[in-house]
């Protein structure tokens, strides 16, 4: 309405308030709730003056502000951007209180919930890791596109996975110690209340943490920070869940200084895109804030989002060709219903207490303590007394019969094919029958369903100081403490009709627990492995930010002390005594990080940005212990991982066009990777000749990786209603050295059960994990009548299979006597070991919606269709660890269909998502 006029009026008023310094200050509120909005970007258009509003929605520009008629641009993700004209007079203060922002009904924050379903954020279904959750609040067109358009391709910004991005809730880091990744599903289905996010991308400084190479994001759940009102959302989709409902309500600040925000959500479905991928999740959220006085407030947050869902399998090309890209080998019919054998359950409530203390107008202290507990369970079938129940087990497929050593067995191949085509799922009846048959002979279970469990109890506490020394210098500092007890074990969840499970390794009759030999274990009992991992981490962070007219710069440092210890609760027969039982050696790592950077403002339109950092960090738990399920040993000579990274950007912004061009280079050194698999074709003078197949732990140690490339993002508001977007990412992510490879296995009769294979010749192989090249073009049309639609075309290239390091060691070409195979041909070997590059592909996504305002209420609707053209494409894959030598790989590759071909993940075909909400 007449706000602009009022503002000009304010501006005029400010003439009166004589001041030695010219100042522009003000505050931003929500147009409907009148609540202050923090983290709003306020820019003086055409200049290099940018600030963000604080928690009270306030901002100010103090020094050397441009005079005369200016335009303030006020923007925040989830709100419609506004431009406010002002007049600035020398020596006067322009004070613009309560500029209002309207919620953008088509905002990306909404879009986020559309294009990304929570399961995609966790790594286990796609095989790749997804960083989208980190970037969802970004206003940068490149990052925004990466989050929303590239997510289904598992695109990693700068080739870095989510381990390099720190996710915080109220300043407390939520990345777990096991693999360094955030467990997104811990707060899944609560989109309404985890929307207040602050992103610091890349090395750019955050007020809360040093951050990772990819950046950090802080989710703010303070009850007083939510807009007063409620919201009910219903969604329907055919991606992971079929239905979602979320109800949330915030009181805003009410009498007595209280504020309460609560949300309840449920997501459920019988089947997602892949067969038998059911979804069953409830979510609860409660945040209560009490304003103790003008300066202090205390906030309690609890988040509980138990989640169960059926997983889907990666498959070989042979399997996909016989079935379809929806095929999932993990399920079978039981009593006429699809039963999935692999269920992931995440049930980890978070309790958090936050104290916010504005000591002065310049200094605040934020002290937080969080406790998280619960379980993560991944179920699977064990088959100690029966054949592998997997319907796509290699011996059941046509390729196996065709690869018969006596020549192709066409008859059997046909039978295998027919059997797989007509059935090809888990035979639960046979499994129960086997167990019941065994019961009659007093034999232990042939099959059981068990869960690999991680029961973590984490206490985290920190305190974060923020102080503005003067108008130019601000300081951030924090001290953090983490204590973790992680209980790891396998637990029987269904005996499948049997009387009990014999707790020995049925393959070689080795006792899993010498303390209780030949124990018969029932439902709820622990089997296979049982140990605790203990971690203590103390870290500190300090940062100084400098802001001047032409240049902003910062410098930050962090230091950490990490200690790990394993405590074995089972005594493994292959590692008797303290080798597996009791507490192992305590490991200590010292981390350090330093970074700095500047933004140089050539003019208001043209900016240069440069950042550089060096991070030394403790390896995560997953990659520290060489075989944590069986013994106390750790990777010998393990050391901290080092990451060095630099980037430089040119940023252009005008009222119509915003663009950023960035070049980056990063190098990781001394990383470790531990993996488990069944290896065939091992050859070493240390391995008995009839023992060339074994279940092994592969330790790849001292890995260096190199990532460099460029990013370009442009958006142009060509008319008030039409916006065009274009994004390009071109990178090259490779192994940068030949890391050392060691295998350990209880089957090896060598010293410490390990065999050193020396270098794995990985240098210059591409890293797996999403496309290394991606392009996107799109447009948005926004009708003034509150309806809108958009379309985007995305192109992906340079996606590579994850290579098997073992095949790149001397094991590949050396026979058991240490000499090369006499038929070894380097030219053929080169062909065999060439890394598979997946086909390029193109995705088209459509989205559109409309909203209505009725009195004070909003009703909104939107729908999206992803992959409209139903493109079929591989998003990732890995070489199987079998066929680890030249002869076997050559023999397998010579068949039309390899028996041990790579396993792949395919992207979803055309899928939809529809969302309606009601807001008041």
């Amino acid at each position, binding site marked *: 309405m007449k706000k602009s006029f009022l503002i000009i009026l304010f501006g005029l008023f400010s003439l009166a308030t004589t001041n030695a310094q010219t100042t522009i200050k003000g505050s931003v509120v929500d147009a409907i709730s009148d609540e202050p909005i923090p983290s709003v970007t306020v820019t003086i258009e055409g200049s290099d003056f940018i600030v963000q509003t604080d928690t009270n929605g306030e901002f100010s520009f103090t020094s050397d502000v441009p005079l005369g008629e200016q335009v303030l641009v006020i923007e925040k993700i989830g709100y419609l951007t506004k431009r406010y004209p002002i007049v600035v007079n020398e020596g006067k203060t322009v004070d613009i209180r309560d500029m209002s922002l309207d919620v953008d009904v088509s905002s990306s924050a909404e879009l986020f919930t559309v294009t990304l379903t929570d399961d995609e954020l966790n790594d286990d279904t796609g095989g790749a890791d997804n960083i989208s959750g980190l970037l969802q609040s970004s206003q940068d067109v490149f990052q925004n596109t990466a989050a929303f358009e590239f997510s289904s391709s598992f695109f990693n910004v700068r080739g870095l996975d989510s381990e390099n991005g720190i996710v915080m809730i109220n300043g407390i880091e939520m990345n777990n110690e096991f693999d360094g990744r955030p467990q997104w599903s811990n707060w899944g289905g609560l989109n309404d209340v985890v929307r207040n996010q602050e992103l610091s991308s890349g090395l750019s400084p955050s007020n809360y943490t040093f951050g990772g190479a990819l950046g950090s994001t802080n989710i703010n759940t303070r009850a007083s920070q939510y807009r007063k009102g409620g919201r009910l959302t219903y969604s329907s989709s055919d991606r992971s869940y079929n239905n979602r409902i979320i109800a949330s309500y915030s009181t805003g600040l009410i009498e007595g200084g209280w504020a309460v925000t609560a949300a309840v959500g449920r997501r459920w*479905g019988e089947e997602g895109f892949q067969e038998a991928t059911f979804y069953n999740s409830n979510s609860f959220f409660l945040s209560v804030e009490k304003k103790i006085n003008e300066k202090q407030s205390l906030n309690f947050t609890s988040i509980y989002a138990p989640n169960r869902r059926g997983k889907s399998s990666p498959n070989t090309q042979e399997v996909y060709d016989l079935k379809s890209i929806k095929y999932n080998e993990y399920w079978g019919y*039981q009593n006429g219903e699809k039963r999935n054998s692999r269920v992931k359950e995440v049930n980890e409530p978070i309790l958090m207490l936050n104290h916010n203390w504005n000591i002065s107008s310049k200094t605040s202290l934020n002290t937080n303590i969080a406790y998280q507990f619960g379980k993560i369970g991944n179920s699977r079938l064990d088959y100690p007394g029966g054949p592998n129940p997997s319907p796509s087990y290699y011996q059941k497929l046509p390729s196996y019969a065709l690869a018969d050593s006596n020549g192709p067995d066409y008859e059997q191949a046909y039978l295998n094919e027919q059997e797989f085509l007509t059935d090809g799922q888990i035979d639960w009846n046979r499994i129960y029958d086997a167990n019941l048959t065994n019961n009659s002979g007093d034999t232990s279970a042939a099959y059981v369903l068990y869960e690999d469990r991680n029961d973590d109890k984490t206490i985290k506490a920190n305190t974060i100081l923020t102080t503005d020394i003067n108008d130019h210098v601000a300081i951030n500092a924090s001290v953090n403490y983490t204590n973790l007890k992680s209980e790891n074990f396998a637990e029987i969840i269904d005996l499948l009709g049997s009387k009990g499970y014999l707790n020995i390794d049925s393959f070689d009759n080795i006792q899993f627990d010498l303390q209780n030999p030949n124990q018969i274990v029932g439902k709820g009992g622990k089997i296979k492995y049982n140990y605790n991992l203990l971690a203590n981490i103390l870290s500190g962070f300090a940062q100084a930010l400098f802001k001047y007219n032409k240049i902003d710069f910062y410098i930050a440092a962090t230091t950490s002390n990490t200690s790990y210890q394993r405590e074995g609760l089972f005594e493994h027969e292959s590692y008797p005594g303290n080798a597996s039982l009791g507490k192992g050696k305590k490991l200590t790592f010292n981390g350090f990080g330093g970074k700095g950077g500047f933004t140089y403002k050539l003019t208001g339109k043209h900016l240069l940005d440069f950042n550089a950092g060096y991070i030394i960090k403790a390896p995560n738990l997953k990659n520290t212990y060489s075989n944590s399920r069986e013994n106390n040993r750790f990777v010998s000579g393990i050391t901290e991982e080092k990451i060095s990274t630099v980037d430089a950007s040119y940023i252009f912004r005008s009222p119509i066009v915003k663009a950023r061009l960035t070049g980056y280079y990063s190098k990781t050194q001394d990383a470790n990777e531990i993996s488990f698999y069944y290896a065939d074709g091992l050859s070493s003078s240390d391995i008995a000749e009839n023992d060339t197949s074994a279940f092994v732990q592969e330790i790849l140690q001292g890995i260096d990786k190199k990532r460099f490339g460029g990013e370009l993002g442009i958006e142009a508001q060509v008319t008030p209603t039409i916006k065009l977007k274009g994004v390009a990412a071109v990178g090259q992510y490779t192994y940068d050295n030949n890391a050392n490879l060691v295998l350990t296995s209880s089957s090896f009769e060598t010293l410490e059960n390990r065999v050193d294979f020396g270098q794995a010749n990985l240098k210059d192989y591409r890293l797996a994990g999403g496309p290394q090249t991606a392009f996107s073009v799109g447009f948005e049309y926004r009708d003034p009548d509150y309806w809108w639609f958009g379309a985007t075309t995305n192109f992906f290239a340079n996606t590579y299979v994850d290579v098997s390091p073992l095949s790149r060691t001397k094991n590949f070409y050396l026979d058991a006597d240490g000499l090369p195979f006499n038929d070894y041909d380097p030219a053929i070997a080169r062909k065999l070991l060439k890394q598979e590059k997946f086909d390029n592909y193109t995705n088209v996504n459509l989205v559109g919606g409309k909203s209505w305002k009725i009195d004070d209420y909003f009703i909104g609707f939107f729908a999206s269709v992803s992959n409209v053209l139903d493109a079929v494409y591989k998003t990732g894959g890995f070489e199987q660890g079998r066929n680890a030598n030249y002869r076997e790989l050559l023999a397998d590759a010579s068949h039309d269909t390899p028996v041990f071909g790579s396993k792949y993940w395919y992207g979803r075909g055309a899928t939809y998502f529809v969302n309606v909400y009601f807001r008041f």
Partner: protein
Amino acid sequence: MSKKNKILSIFTIVTFTLAFTSCVKDDDYTVPDSLGTEENARLNTLLSDIQTGNTTLLSVQNVKDLYQNATPAFIETSIAVKGYISSSDRTGNFFKEIYLQDAPENPTAGIKIILNQVDTYNQYNFGREVYIKLTGLYVGEERVGTGVIAIGGSTQTNQFGTTVKKMTENQRATSMFRSENTATIIPKTLTFSQVNASDIGLYVQFEGVEFADNLIGLQYFDPIQDFDTSRNLQSCGGIGYSTFNLETSSFASFKDVFLPTGNGTVSGVITKTFDGRSLVLALNEVNELNLTGPRCTPMTTEDFTVVFNEDFQSAVNNTILDFPEWTNFSEAGTFKWREKIFSGNGYAEFSSNGSGSVSNIAWLITPGIDMDAQDNEFLNFNAAQHHLDSPLNMLEVLLSTDYDGSNVLAATWTAVDAALPSQSNPWYQFVDSGLINLSSYSGTLYVAFKVVGSGTNTALDGAYQIDDLKILATN
């Protein structure tokens, strides 16, 4: 109630109603009710077909007899067989094979079933009553000449002859039906010397046995071998040890278990070595050995007084046997027993090879032995074979007290059980007969060795050798 609160209440109600009515079934599964119904239906159809006579139920021996002339028999008629599972692959000692015997107790015939399935034990468990609809299946051998008759699903011809191949998964599902009964299998108790080809596939027990002295401290499987390891079992039934091999697969889960050192009982399934030459015992479970008693000591000749002894050391190589008072008689054909010497050892041998006679029946009879001069007499001898291809090419041990020293066919001859060499013994390897109790005899006793063979049928032209014949009496 304000308007907002009203709306909120409605939301809450709707939310929770939806949430709690939208149950996703993801755990709490029970044993499927349809378990086994398909198999039961097929079994019932088969049983009623047998009842009505549409299908004929044959004995295991009848089924084995269908295999003739080294050519697998394709079953086109409606016949079926019933049996009880005598083997178990739980430990991996059997692989894609099941043995079936005709009765849970006192079995007379066993047969092998070959199928493309592992871990059959958890379906066709030990003692389970199983019906096999044979129509469309084959009966034959996996390697011609082994004498191990198997039911399979197809045939192939290779270096082992025309042989049967494993049933496919589908053939198994549509042919092999379990009944609800699991019988308790009572092992057939045998001595080593009693084991013969008709015991293949039967679950048997040996008593008073132990592993050979040189095996102490070894494991069931010898890691330098690729597939199977034979371990010698011995028993003390006669003079010196009698022996039998226990064979263990490299895939057996107990392959690395150390051999027990005591003496006791061993139960398992009689099978043959891969090449079909020797009968062996294979364990289902490692606890089928109960070797905890003290080791035995075999009797030696010092424990006896020698009443009669012929070691054939006075033989003249390759001459017709003409020892004084011995009878060397050809009932059919012209060939007779001959004196032989090999590596300084003399013995008697009969072979019909080259006789040209369609039928050879040759007798070798000892001098008369006075059975009244002492008590508790035993007969003991060693026998060997070579080129033996058929059980019809037979050696018999016969006794008579009314033989007049010349008219062989006029006397009354009684056959006695002795451990005799069979096709499963290596050529030229002398087998101890065991101690054959003669204490019930009195008067003058004659011992005869009668060989039936042919000079024109190459399957019947093997040779038998006799050595170290003794009549002993306990001191």
